[in-house]
């Protein structure tokens, strides 16, 4: 039949309407494409961003508090994120287990009650076993979580799952809760890549669009680290995917919505150039177009960062502002859209310890002192020492790591920051706008 010309075949199609196969296939084409175009008409349209609204009470006295979210010793705890619940409590998610990527790693959660200043006991939200059963497919390990609460009160948790290989083979799984995390829906896989749905990872906080859909910042990790923004609808399905930058060394995008049409994206730098600096792209048309990548003056040792946009337009970011390692963590603020930055407070700083002679006893004393300074409930610092030694000591010395910050601002204007503490614990820092203004000084405020 291949030899029959198109014209001849058309004539035959008209004349020999009796050919059942032609008619059947024609009917299938009409029905299939009729339904297809119908669906295309209802596809997700571009939408404006929905900026977060916070009311910052500046007449309060400055407040700054620290504590540990987790206290289980000898256990990996990493990549925490935060979300404010409907009643003003804060829920944290992180992953924990014997070591990163181990089959026993689970996503855990705990709730912080601001009025009492305490974290609840941690509970399991997701594990490889529970995800396997829900997805009806093999899942070997779980990783980075991130969460958002949508306007209809649904709490969404997105987390990385890996079936084959390392993190490069990762995919994203979603679960939803209608009661702020007490119970969860069955897990759903977010299909976001054409290659066996591999190679999409998540870390940064999601954003909201005006039409109620979720913007989920993700990055590919198989061939290179390309930052992308997924659009997720109310059923948890990916309905659009947008590339944020052509740069292949920019994982873990952090999208900071500044208005209904403007957003700034900060990018972790995994490129070969030294010193590495935070990448930046931005949109002025609600994400229809993104500016070419440029570099901010902020140092970035290939480490995750997090940030929020204040009601007065300032941008507050938590990051490891050092050239190498992750032994320092700072809050920095910009009042000019990210062009210039001022350090608000170096929250952790063990840079000087790199150059000191190897001294295990001094390391132990430092860890214990840091733990006690963080949380007054730490009576015996030995668990913190042993846990830090387990994850942070390799030849020729022991290290410090304060990494993977997650920063949010509540509707009441209070800032909450969590981050990995020596790979073994999650530390929580809370402060208010009055403290920020005092620490940032005049240069950090919009005039």
């Amino acid at each position, binding site marked *: *039949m*291949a030899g*029959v010309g*198109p014209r001849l*075949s*058309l004539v035959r*199609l008209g004349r020999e309407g009796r050919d059942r*196969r*032609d008619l059947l*296939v*024609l009917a*299938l*084409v009409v*029905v*299939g*494409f009729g*339904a*297809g*175009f*119908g*669906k*295309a*008409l*209802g*596809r*997700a349209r571009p939408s404006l961003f929905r900026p977060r609204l916070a009311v910052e009470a500046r007449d309060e006295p400055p407040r700054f508090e620290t504590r540990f979210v987790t206290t289980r010793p000898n256990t990996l705890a990493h990549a925490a994120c935060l979300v404010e619940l409907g009643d003003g409590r804060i829920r944290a998610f992180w992953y924990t287990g014997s070591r990163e990527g181990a089959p026993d790693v689970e996503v855990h959660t705990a709730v912080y009650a601001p009025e009492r200043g305490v974290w609840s006991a941690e509970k399991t939200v997701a594990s490889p*076993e529970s995800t*396997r059963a829900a997805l*009806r*497919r*093999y*899942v070997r390990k779980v990783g980075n979580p991130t969460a958002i609460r949508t306007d209809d009160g649904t709490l969404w948790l997105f987390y990385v799952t890996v*079936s*084959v290989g390392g993190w490069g083979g990762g995919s994203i799984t979603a679960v939803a809760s209608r009661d702020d995390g007490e119970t969860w829906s069955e897990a*759903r*896989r977010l*299909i976001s*890549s*054409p*290659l*066996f*749905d591999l*190679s999409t990872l998540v870390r940064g906080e999601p954003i909201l669009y005006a039409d109620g859909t979720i913007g989920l910042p993700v990055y*590919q990790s*198989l*061939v*290179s680290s*390309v930052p992308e923004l997924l659009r997720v609808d109310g059923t948890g*399905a*990916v*309905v*659009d*995917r*947008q*590339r944020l*930058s*052509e*740069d*292949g060394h920019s994982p873990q995008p952090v999208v900071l919505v500044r208005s209904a049409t403007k957003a700034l994206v900060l990018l972790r730098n995994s490129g070969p150039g030294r010193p590495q600096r935070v990448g930046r792209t931005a949109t002025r048309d609600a994400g229809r177009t993104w500016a070419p990548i440029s570099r901010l003056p902020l140092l970035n040792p290939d480490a995750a960062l997090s940030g929020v946009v204040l009601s007065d337009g300032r941008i507050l970011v938590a990051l490891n502002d050092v050239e190498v390692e992750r032994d320092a963590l700072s809050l920095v603020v910009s009042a000019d859209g990210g062009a210039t930055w001022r350090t608000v407070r170096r929250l952790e700083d063990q840079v000087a310890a790199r150059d000191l002679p190897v001294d295990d006893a001094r390391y132990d004393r430092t860890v214990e002192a840091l733990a006690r300074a963080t949380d007054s409930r730490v009576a015996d610092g030995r668990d913190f020492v042993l846990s830090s030694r387990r994850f942070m000591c390799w030849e020729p010395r022991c290290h410090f790591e304060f990494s993977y910050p997650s920063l949010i601002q509540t509707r009441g204007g209070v800032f909450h920051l969590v981050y990995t503490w020596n790979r073994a614990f999650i530390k929580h820092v809370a402060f208010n706008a009055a403290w920020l203004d005092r620490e940032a000084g005049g240069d950090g405020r919009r005039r």
Partner: protein
Amino acid sequence: MMGPALSAAALAALLLSLPGVALLRRARPALLLAVALGVALVPLGGLPAAAYARGAVGDLSVTTMLLLLHSLLRPVLGWESVGKASRITLQVLAATGGLLLYPSALAPGPTDPYRIGFGNPWFLAALLLLATGALVLRLHFVASSIALAVLVWALGGYESRNLWDYLLDPLLAVWGTVALLVWSQKAIVQATRR
């Protein structure tokens, strides 16, 4: 449920196409049912075999499923073969689609062809043109594959909302590419002999 069911069917089809088993033509429907149920329901280390396959390769495209099921059921139900012209056309389309889609969608660069799969009407129009062309040329299997993939996408058959995932998968792209390479090599050898 469509994903797990299709994974089981695909795995069953692959198992039944093994040498020896493939000769048992008359027993194929019963064998297919038994093997599909087995790989879908019988747990091996906590999960059915189909779930392991699905974990590794995800859901296979509608086109791949049609090819697998057609090759499996054709001898029993007396269907006509796909036809050489349809097969070569499918191989060319799969290879070209794979070449267009995978490198650009996975590597850094200005274009992301995967995005047009989220309901871009121009992409659908191009596919309609392809399907109509195939119909005119009486490449029924090609036209049916494209139309059915679009229909299943419109009905939300898989977890994915991206039309590419219904049309193409990496295994299909590899099949098309390898077939074209083999075909090219044969053509070169023949031309050299002349």
